[in-house]
């Protein structure tokens, strides 16, 4: 079925644009970059309609590592879960690539941007298609690399390169846990292949599976920005907005959710690990939503929203409703990408302004952007019958089955979600314009993807019944469909919207009075609970100081250089002593000759004497 074409087409785009892109015209760069992604999407569609979706279609290409008992092949496999992920990655990816033509039109490094985007698509597709943990890890690391390259795209800005470093380093911590998990898997199962590992999982001991599950969770926390490793995602907004939409909303950050869902046979036999996933998910969802309430940068609001929604996906996966978590992944890709792309359109209209306090009243000036973003806003708020309602509701119902407190916290978070999204919408599009720019609507090449995503956000939940599609992949979740719970969560969303309308449209002064009234709490939330500062003091500074003082000055300069230089000094000292023999005077040489020959004679005599005594 030539599954290898799916990731390799974007890779070809990367190579062509990378090597020749400097000399290409913008049109040719576009054709190569977007063409490769569109072709990949077309091939995904062809694959879906050609293979039998009731079985896993696997392709083995070559043996990558063969060493004793260790055998890792380059294997791709497609089952229903893979199909869902492929459609999201290539479909939403293609739309964002098209949008980026308009957004990046006036930026420098045009071909470099599309190079990196194509490279990202390649790695993400490898991650999704992989059928063993090592190949998945290759894709995992690769998307982390591309995230670093794209966040630091404006490499002459220090805050951008710092953010890229932060993303990569924090991800590395998660990757460490993931690596340990992979080692454990090999130690206990002898293989990395999904099929074999998952077939053997039921026989393994719970302790082993829990350890593996928790280590995989560490990896997922890093990549999918959960507590305590979420700190890189808000800073990642330093990258261009299409990057935020593609990588930090729709695809890369969902890799952790995908990996966890894929490993469901391990997790269903390790209930403690699953519970840990759900707890971390719901706490992250709530925590990030509270931070999002007070942010003034439009992209930061959506960044914390992403962290929060990822928490929801983890709740779904951790409470056993895997397909609900994946469903939320899909719907979130639609509305979050739309929110980011719309925010990009707003920023573009205002020539770079990102502060909500400098916006306002834009709904008449940029109507297309307004209406498409409104579609996304109602979707994320969980208003029925739009996309977010179905998936979020499925997760909350599953949470109630697992542990009711998670349902209540999740519902409260749903209310907070609706509030902060609509706060952002009202501050941007309603009221009077508070800024100094001349807002202009974006070009069609940016608006058409917005429109497509808006349609998907509205209808995607009703049209794509993902849990039914995935029913044969995951264990069946009980359909308890308790209507009361559904009404409560919808009511929470609507209450959030109403409160936002009250505070930002009807009575704008109320927002400021609340902020001054709760001044301490407001400052604490506005500064993200000072988590970055705490990490800096507790982790970063000690490591830097330890590294600088102990390891660099102490060990490297002192010990190692000292040893190497010391050997040289000792050799020179010994040499200067031996040099005294070279006196240049013939008589002393003669004396040494005599002395040496006496020594030889004495030695020979001793040996002869010794033999004589022995005899």
């Amino acid at each position: 079925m030539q599954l290898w074409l799916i990731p390799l087409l974007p890779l070809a785009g990367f190579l062509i644009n990378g090597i020749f892109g400097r000399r290409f015209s913008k049109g040719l760069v576009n054709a190569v970059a977007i063409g490769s992604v569109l072709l990949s999407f077309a091939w995904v569609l062809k694959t879906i309609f050609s293979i039998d979706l009731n079985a896993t279609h696997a392709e083995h290409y070559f043996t990558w590592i063969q060493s004793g008992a260790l055998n890792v092949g380059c294997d791709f496999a497609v089952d229903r879960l893979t199909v869902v992920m492929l459609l999201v990655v290539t479909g939403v990816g293609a739309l964002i690539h098209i949008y980026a033509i308009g957004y990046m039109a006036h930026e420098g490094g045009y071909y470099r941007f599309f190079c990196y985007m194509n490279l990202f698509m390649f790695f993400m597709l490898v991650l999704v298609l992989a059928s063993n943990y090592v190949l998945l890890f290759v894709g995992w690391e690769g998307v982390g690399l591309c995230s670093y390259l794209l966040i630091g795209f404006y490499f002459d800005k220090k805050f951008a390169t710092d953010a890229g470093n932060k993303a990569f380093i924090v991800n590395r911590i998660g990757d460490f846990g993931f690596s340990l998990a992979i080692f454990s898997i090999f130690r206990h199962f002898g293989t990395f292949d999904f099929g074999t590992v998952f077939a053997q999982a039921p026989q393994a001991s719970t302790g082993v599976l829990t350890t593996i599950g928790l280590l995989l969770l560490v990896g997922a926390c890093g990549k999918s920005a959960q507590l305590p490793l979420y700190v890189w995602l808000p800073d990642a907004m330093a990258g261009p907005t299409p990057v935020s939409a593609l990588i930090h909303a729709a695809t890369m950050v969902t890799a952790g959710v995908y990996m966890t869902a894929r490993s469901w046979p391990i997790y269903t036999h390790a209930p403690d690990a699953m519970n840990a996933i759900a707890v971390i998910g719901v706490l992250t969802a709530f925590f990030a939503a509270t931070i999002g309430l007070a942010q003034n940068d439009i992209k930061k609001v959506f960044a914390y929203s992403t962290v929060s929604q990822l928490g929801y996906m983890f709740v779904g996966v951790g409470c056993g409703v895997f397909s609900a978590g994946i469903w939320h992944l899909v719907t979130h890709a639609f509305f979050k990408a739309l929110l980011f792309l719309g925010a990009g359109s707003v920023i573009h209209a205002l020539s770079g302004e990102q502060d909500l306090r400098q916006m306002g009243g834009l709904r008449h000036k940029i109507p297309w952007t307004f209406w498409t973003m409104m579609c996304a806003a109602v979707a994320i708020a969980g208003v029925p019958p739009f996309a977010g309602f179905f998936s979020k509701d499925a997760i909350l119902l599953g949470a109630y089955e697992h542990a009711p407190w998670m349902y209540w916290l999740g519902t409260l978070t749903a209310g907070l979600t609706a509030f902060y999204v609509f706060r952002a919408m009202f501050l941007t599009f309603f009221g009077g314009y508070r800024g100094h720019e001349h807002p202009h609507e974006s070009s069609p090449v940016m608006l058409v993807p917005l429109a497509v995503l808006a349609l998907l956000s509205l209808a995607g939940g009703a049209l794509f019944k993902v849990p039914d599609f995935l029913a044969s992949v995951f264990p069946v979740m009980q359909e308890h469909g308790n209507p009361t719970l559904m009404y409560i969560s919808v009511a929470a969303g609507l209450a959030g919207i109403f409160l936002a309308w009250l505070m930002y449209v009807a009575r704008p002064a109320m927002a400021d009075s609340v902020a001054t009234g709760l001044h301490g709490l407001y400052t604490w939330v506005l500064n993200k609970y000072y988590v970055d500062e705490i990490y800096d003091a507790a982790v970063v500074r000690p490591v830097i100081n330890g590294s600088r003082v102990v390891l660099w000055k102490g060990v490297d300069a002192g010990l190692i250089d000292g040893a190497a230089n010391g050997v040289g000094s000792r050799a020179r000292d010994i040499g200067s002593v031996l040099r005294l023999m070279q006196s240049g005077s013939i008589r002393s040489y003669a004396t040494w000759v005599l002395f040496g020959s006496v020594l030889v004679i004495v030695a020979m005599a001793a040996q002869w004497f010794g033999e004589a005594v022995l005899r």
Partner: protein
Amino acid sequence: MMNEVPISWFLTLSAVLFALGVAGFLFRRNIITVFMSIELMLNAVNLSFITFSYQLNQVNGHLFAFFVMVVAAAEAAVGLAIILTVFKNRGTLNIDDVNSMKN
């Protein structure tokens, strides 16, 4: 004829001659005197060889003594050539003054 001069006397004489040669080699300043001491050492050893070959009634010692004499002659020729060159360049026969290899 050769009766009852004890062998040990010959060997003692050889040893004494050798010791004198060593002493002259170490302690004399004139290069030619040093060379003469070297020849003295070689001849002392020759005497020792001949003595043992007489004692053991073999001809090996005599043969080796011939070899030693040939080598001594060649070495003397070469050595004197070197001494002449040194004298032409340095103008002195004092070995303590031939020390330009010092340090």
